[in-house]
């Protein structure tokens, strides 16, 4: 069995699976049960000046019979007294010395306030702090959370304050509610961040009750935008993680968060450059027990691929992500249908007809009408392959016409545009 242990900027963890700062890490008894279930680390529910929450605070979106493909919340940071949390953190770390225990922080934008809380956390024996610059609702209206994460100068400044006060590793948790993720990430690194974690939740309105015409979640007749997370946000998170993993001006380890439910999701984050991953929604849906298959599935995958340590795959796919201008314009694929598998639903035909390039006409084969790809016309867009309900029925086949690769950049001699925004 491959070695799953991780060293994340000096924080040791038996595996790369951490709980994200959220309800599942609300208090000591919960984190301890999570460690017992197999979680390698946990980021404590964000500490700060205790707040009052509203009721209700969660809403979700379903996809057919599948519940909660996306979750939205308007919960704030911890509502428990600071001293109680600090005491439980100390106790938990004492009981679980081999697990990673990180404490998420958010206080008002005052140097002393950040110094004070960072020192208090260091005193508990916790392994690191995570700065919550991402909460997109409520806290941001008070000048905290995303309000800091959206202004790179603030991000840099507050990170510096925390670094002044503690020798613990400092992880900055970024908000995805920005036009480009690179400037705030670079700012955090400039401020001394040892690592980055992302993504926090995305601004969202989950829907409207058509009877009452009140949007979800209803707080006495009113609603506010909330933070979106869960399986549906994974592609957004993967993009942001891979953007930072390949940014030479970032260059610090990343903890990937957003929509991770299975070992496959987690492995994708690792391949795209995350060293650890954090999970919230999937645990809120199914419980701590899901970590068993995260560990088992990753471990079997590594064994199958002949790896002896999870570290060998971290960032293995990062170099496969590039700018559009570096893609090969001469690379050609076409769709091909295996008629032995085809169930004649004709979705490929209508998708191509009305949504692509009209190149999946019908042909009679053995007295039956089958869709057949007109390879001369097919532009290799993937659409038919994506809509086909039968596994392995449509494959995208490479047509090699011997041409040398040619990119748009080579064709136009353009240089990459610099990332701007800070």
């Amino acid at each position, binding site marked *: 069995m491959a070695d799953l242990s991780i060293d994340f900027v000096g924080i040791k963890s038996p595996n790369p699976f951490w709980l994200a700062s959220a309800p599942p890490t609300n208090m000591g008894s919960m984190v301890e049960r999570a460690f017992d279930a197999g979680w390698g680390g946990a980021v404590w529910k964000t500490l700060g000046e205790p707040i009052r929450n509203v009721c209700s605070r969660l809403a979700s979106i379903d996809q057919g*019979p*599948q519940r909660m493909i996306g979750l939205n919340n308007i919960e704030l940071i911890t509502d428990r007294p600071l001293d109680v949390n600090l005491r439980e953190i100390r106790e938990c770390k004492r009981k679980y010395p081999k697990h990673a225990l990180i404490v998420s922080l958010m206080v008002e934008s005052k140097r002393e306030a950040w110094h004070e809380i960072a020192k208090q956390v260091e005193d508990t024996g916790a392994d690191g702090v995570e700065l919550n610059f991402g909460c997109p609702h409520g806290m941001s209206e008070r000048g905290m959370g995303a309000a800091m994460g959206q202004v790179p100068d603030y991000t840099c400044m507050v990170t510096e304050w925390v670094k002044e006060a503690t020798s613990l590793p400092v992880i900055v948790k970024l908000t995805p509610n920005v036009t480009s993720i690179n400037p705030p990430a670079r700012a955090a690194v400039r401020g001394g961040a040892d690592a980055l974690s992302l993504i926090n939740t995305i601004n969202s309105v989950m829907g409207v009750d058509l009877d009452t015409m009140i949007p979800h979640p209803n707080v006495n007749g009113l609603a506010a935008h909330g933070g979106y997370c869960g399986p549906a946000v994974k592609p957004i998170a993967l993009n942001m993680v891979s953007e930072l993993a390949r940014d030479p001006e970032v260059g610090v380890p990343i903890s990937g968060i957003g929509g991770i439910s*299975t*070992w*496959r999701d987690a492995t994708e984050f690792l391949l795209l450059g995350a060293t650890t991953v954090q999970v919230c929604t999937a645990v809120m849906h*199914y*419980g701590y*027990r*899901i970590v*068993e*298959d995260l560990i*088992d*599935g990753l471990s*079997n*995958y590594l064994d*199958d691929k002949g790896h002896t340590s999870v570290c060998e795959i971290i960032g293995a796919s990062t170099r496969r992500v590039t700018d559009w201008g570096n893609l090969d314009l001469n690379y050609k694929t076409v769709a091909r249908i295996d008629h032995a598998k085809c169930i004649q639903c004709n979705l490929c035909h209508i998708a191509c007809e009305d949504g692509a390039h009209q190149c999946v006409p019908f042909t009679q084969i053995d007295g039956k009408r089958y869709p057949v790809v007109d390879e001369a016309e097919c532009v290799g867009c993937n659409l038919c392959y994506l809509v086909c*309900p*039968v*596994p*392995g029925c449509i494959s995208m086949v490479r047509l090699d016409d011997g041409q040398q690769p040619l990119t748009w950049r080579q064709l136009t001699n353009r240089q990459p545009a610099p990332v701007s925004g800070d």
Partner: protein
Amino acid sequence: MSSDTTPLLSQQEIEHNFREIAPPLSQAEAILEANRCVYCYDAPCTRACPTHIDVPSFIKKIASGNLTGSARVIFEANPIGATCARVCPVEVLCEGACVEKTLMAKPIEIGRLQRYATDAVLSKQRDVLQAGAPNGKSVGIVGSGPAGLSCATYLARLGYAVTIYERKSLAGGLDTYGMAEYKMSQAVSQDEVAQVARLGVVFKTNTEVGRGVSFAELQQTHDAIFIAVGLGATSRLNIPGEDLAGVYDALAFIERIKSRDWASVPMGRNVAIIGAGNTAIDAVTQARRLGAERVLMIYRRTAQEMPAYHYEYELAKKDAVEFLWLTAPVEILADETGTRVGALRCVRMELEPNNVGGAARRGVRPVPGSEFVVPVDIVIKATGQQKLRAWFEQLPGVELDEGGRVITDRETMRTANPKIFAGGDCVNGGREAVDAAQMGKLAAQGIHESLTGERVEFVGARSSV
């Protein structure tokens, strides 16, 4: 008059008739079905499974694409998980308890998903269980059916040197020789036996304890002994004509089918099966598949009292079996050769008015003057298996109850002799393969505790929470 192995159907027709009643799930089906499972916590399906397989865990591993892990979860709780996937009466076990059955009368197809996962590793011979470091102790097991295989697996995982003594030429017990051929073939049971053998368990086949090797010898060789001999041959009818050619014990009949050597299988146009348990159903449905034109199921009580499961009864009805309720055989009549079955004389029965002496069910008695004769070529006896009372006499200190079942401690499966443990059909009087597997697991725990003083608890030894 034809000999009774003259085929009534072509080879292809027979093969077609014996195709799997529950074929494997395709990848698309398995993924869809696995995603339909809501991943219950403290799941009712797991509680209903006698081996308490963590069903939601193995199903979610199918959904996540971790088939190796999925099979491991299954085999850790049930070493004959591939057999059980095909032969378990799921309607009254896991699937009967599934919340999706409550929600919309469509339980998750747990058995077929279990098959999907276990097939994936058995076909690759990918081992998901490992033998423990040798602990220097040795255990002998008599019988290689579900109970024996299960106990051997757990003991091997703990580091025991395990030897299984089996009187038949192939290991697997009724998994190999008894399961209806349309449910599973011998290949599945042999794959599972091979998996157990790869853990280092030694199989001594063609070795009958009490004949080829004495029980005393076993006691000298091993630190403890697990008895998993199952039950004996089918009970006799004790009516005239019982020894005519063409009268079969259901077990012997099914055993011949299991060889798939169709030329050696008895076939008849008119077949009578005596009894109405699950074995009787297996006999009628298979006789039908061999090409019998008329199949009669003869039972002295009514449909309400038949011991077979409801869905098994439905299967027999679908196969157009004729049921003669409240009917008992009184004599098997020879045909013109004088040596072969030609007809069956029966008598009508009626229910006695009251439960005599508080008996669980009402008695039946013959109706005077109601005898009738039906022409048949084959009679199959399926009136329940006998207990191996005589065999147990050679086991010092082992006690049987009045029903002939071995008396054991319920948790450790220890008999009255502290070195001898027992499990499976010989203890419970004849239930399902999965029950025998669970008893094998409990016995392994009991043996380990008695030999080392250490308590271990294997996955699914008890129901959760």
